[in-house]
């Protein structure tokens, strides 16, 4: 699970959960895959990304203060920033661990890179 994927996931599927975002991460195994850098793609993605949620996810993985707290101005032309964003969004993958619903504390396991966001019948 890339952090870009994580940035889009919510636990809203649970009964009584209104926002369910962002999901906390407790990682047991993380890997880094090299992915080709495409500045145009990353620039477009940054518009969709909830930046504070990304920072928090990075923090959960132990990367404290590695990302600026806000998206920098004129980021389209800031290659250093885009590369950093690319690394966090596209290259870091949580392979095993749990995602935590911020409202209920319910854990969603991540196994071999696949989050299981399926709620039980009594949870929906």
């Amino acid at each position, binding site marked *: *699970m*890339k952090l*870009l*994927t994580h940035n*889009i*996931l*919510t*636990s*809203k*599927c649970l009964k009584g959960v209104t926002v369910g*975002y962002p999901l906390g991460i407790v990682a047991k195994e993380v890997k880094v*895959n090299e992915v080709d850098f*495409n500045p*145009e*793609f*990353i*620039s*477009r*993605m940054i518009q*969709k990304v*909830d930046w504070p949620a990304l920072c928090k996810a990075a923090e959960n993985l132990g990367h404290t203060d590695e990302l600026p707290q806000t998206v920098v101005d004129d980021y389209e032309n800031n290659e250093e920033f885009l590369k950093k964003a690319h690394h966090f969004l596209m290259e870091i*993958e949580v392979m095993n661990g749990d995602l935590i619903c911020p409202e209920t504390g319910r854990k969603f396991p991540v196994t*071999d*890179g*696949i*989050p*299981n*966001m*399926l*709620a039980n*019948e009594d949870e*929906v």
Partner: protein
Amino acid sequence: MSVNLLDNFSSSPTNVLCLINAGLLNGFTREEILDIFERFGDVENLIMLEGKSYCVLSFKKENNSAESYQKLNGSFCLKDESKPLYLCFLKYTLLSFQETSKVWPTGLILKKNFISLGEEEKLLFFTHTQQSESQTSQLKHRTVKHYGFEFLYGSNKVDKNPLSSGIPVEMEPLIEKFMEFGLARPNQLTVNHYVPGQGIPLHTDTHSSFEDGIISVSLGSDIVMDFKNNKGGECVSITLPRRSCLIMTNESRYMWSHGITPRKSDVVDAELGGLTILRREKRTSLTFRKIRTSECDCKFTEWCDSLSSKIVDFSEEAADQIEKNHVFHVYDGIASHFSATRHSPWPNVKSFIMSFPVGSLLVDIGCGNGKYFNCSSSLFNIGTDRSSQLLKICRNRDDHQVVKADCRVSPFRDSIADAAICIAVIHHLTTDERRLKTLIDISRVLVKGGRALIYVWARDQQIGIEKSTYLLQKKSEVSSRAEAYPTAVLPVHENRTNFKHADILVPWKLNFRNSNSEELEYRGSSESNPSTYLRFYHVFKEGELEYLCSKVSNITVCRSFYDQGNWCVEFKKE
């Protein structure tokens, strides 16, 4: 048309006469007027207007009109009324008015002179002798007798318990004529006797009760039948001459209402142009229908009661159970074999994906083995599926981003995806409500202006002469032998044939070379053949997917089409 008669009066004789107090409104027929005036010379034209108590008649020669004026004006007594006829001269005749162009309901067939006078006489005699017998009911507006099955006026349905008497043998010559026209043999007959002034309210015979092709034979009197389009609301009145046969098929049977206004006469088109009055006589109608034994498969879903009733009404528990046994477990069991046989993306889905710009987010709801992930490297794809085995296949191939989730509740933020695809997924859901919920959730996830493409398996596997690839698939791929599935909870479909039911189980024969023993632990309930899995499908009929989409607020269907045995819709979030 509005006519200003005052500007048109002439104080001196002309060849044009206005009959001031004789017109369609006060019950004059064309023939009656012509009878009176043709004695004086050749009538050039007679214009009778609907809703007017006058008419305009022109002679070829002016002296004929002058003579008739002298002889008739103020002295000729009209019919049995005491009032005399009043006439005046007009400078010119009325311009021939434009007849409103009539719409003819699609699929409506009228065969004039369907039976001879002799045949009509025989049928009238027979139906009148029957009328006095039992089982005749006097409705508010007419007398009715049913044969074969009872047509329930009120609900416009049929009582599917057969009546003691079937269609009488006396109808056999008629039925043979119907069959010559390629109509199916009817098994229900309603005989209605109408006296002048009686009618029948506008109605559509219930879809689930009767097959396509409702036949009505008119005996004893011409009648004007009104048709109303249930969709557009346009109305058209059609004269059914006595001895004619009316066949309602297609749109006219499923999407139009028909009825007879209770009145004693009708205004109709005259044979030589213009309008005239048609007085009603006693009329007997014979309505032949064929009782439907399976669900209605019409495409007029908005008016089809079958659409709701035909969907097997599973309880939530049963629905869960069927999806678990016949969808989730099946896909986990057949994952590798399925994936090996499902590798090429469908071209129309691929071109939809390619239509989005770099950096768009695509969610693939029910991504299966992820065959659409590689269509475009400039998009960010996230897939969801219920099958862990299929998700593993995706993940192990190029680390695709996949999440295990229910398609009805995707675990994504609101208004985030530019594109969504949901290909061959919602036909695996057991209820209409679940299928709709999935579409609503897809629209929730889309950004404003975002587009989704939905594919579902079509009940019609052959449109026109073109067979779908499903029907054409080589027999060698699967055993074509029909097998018995004694424990199956739903009808089991015979592969490579057209679908007979909407909710079915479709066998998947596992090829042992592609499977392993672990997979065989999860099986659908096909006890007879351990290598066969039964997948649940709800196959969609034409228009059903669009109808489902119409229930989702803030989306617009951009296009809908048929693609290789699937009904497909592309919609946009507003």
